[in-house]
């Protein structure tokens, strides 16, 4: 394991983690029509979901641009 692999894996995991966590906090997909579901549990969780996607994919840039010993 080197720095490149560790950081890339971390970024992917953080991104996926943010996606999973924010998805749970979105206006929940488990209920259909209740008034409670018209608002997200945590505001901006959709934004966090998107940020999760961005972080996960940015890891590819780090992976290729990072200069380190193999």
């Amino acid at each position, binding site marked *: 394991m080197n720095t490149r692999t560790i950081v890339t894996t971390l970024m992917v995991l953080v991104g996926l983690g943010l996606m999973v966590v924010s998805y749970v906090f979105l206006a929940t997909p488990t209920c*259909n029509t*209740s*008034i409670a579901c*018209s608002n997200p549990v945590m505001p901006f969780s959709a934004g966090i979901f998107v940020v999760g996607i961005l972080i996960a994919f940015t890891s590819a840039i780090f992976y290729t641009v990072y200069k380190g010993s193999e």
Partner: protein
Amino acid sequence: MAKYAMAVDLDRCQGCRGCMEACKIENNTPQAVFWMYVFRTETGEYPDTKMSFLPRPCQHCNNPPCVKVCPVGARFRREDGIVLTDPERCIGCRYCEVACPYGVNYYNWRKPDAAFGAYDMDYSDPDVAAVTGGVIPSYKNPDLDLLQGDEQRLTAGGAHSVGVMEKCTFCVHRVDKGLNPACVDVCPVHALHFGDIEDPESPVSVYLRERSSFKLLDELGTDPSVIYVGGAPPGSETREIERPLTEVRS
């Protein structure tokens, strides 16, 4: 918690469209927008034709497709069954409109201020002023701008701002005060009945108790809160006749 419903007696409705007028006055809806709409339809071929009427408010479904598809939760269903739109949340994607099988959603295609009433008219014209007594319409019901219910949200009652979706609110501003929707109170033949369907003594429960009833497009699983008594659901032979002005002029 109350659960509001409306009973529409098709045997009583005479198609006067007084409810449509009451709705427009109560909710100050813009031109060509009919939150309450009464179909005047006929079936059969001349000379054996039969005319019938079908009032169509928002059905306030218990399983509303419009609420499901709203990407931002602007369309919501209160615990008491009233389906409302938050005009400050609405992004105007019109998904609720295409998802609704009843065609009850009205998008504000233009700024409604110029024609808040029914017609574009120069109210300062002396001839017009002689008739109106100098009163300039665009009266606005102040109750419509109030935040409603436990959630304290706007309800598409009064904003009428361009680029958002609006529809029948069951006159939520009146219901929360203990009144009936405007269309129900104005009906001259008591074809419309409103109340808490979970209360066995409410007008709507009493009315429905001994009559057979149907719901519009029940097969789609939307489970409307508007229940029709008497008459028959519109079939494939039903043709609409006599339409009011339904064009939005640009």
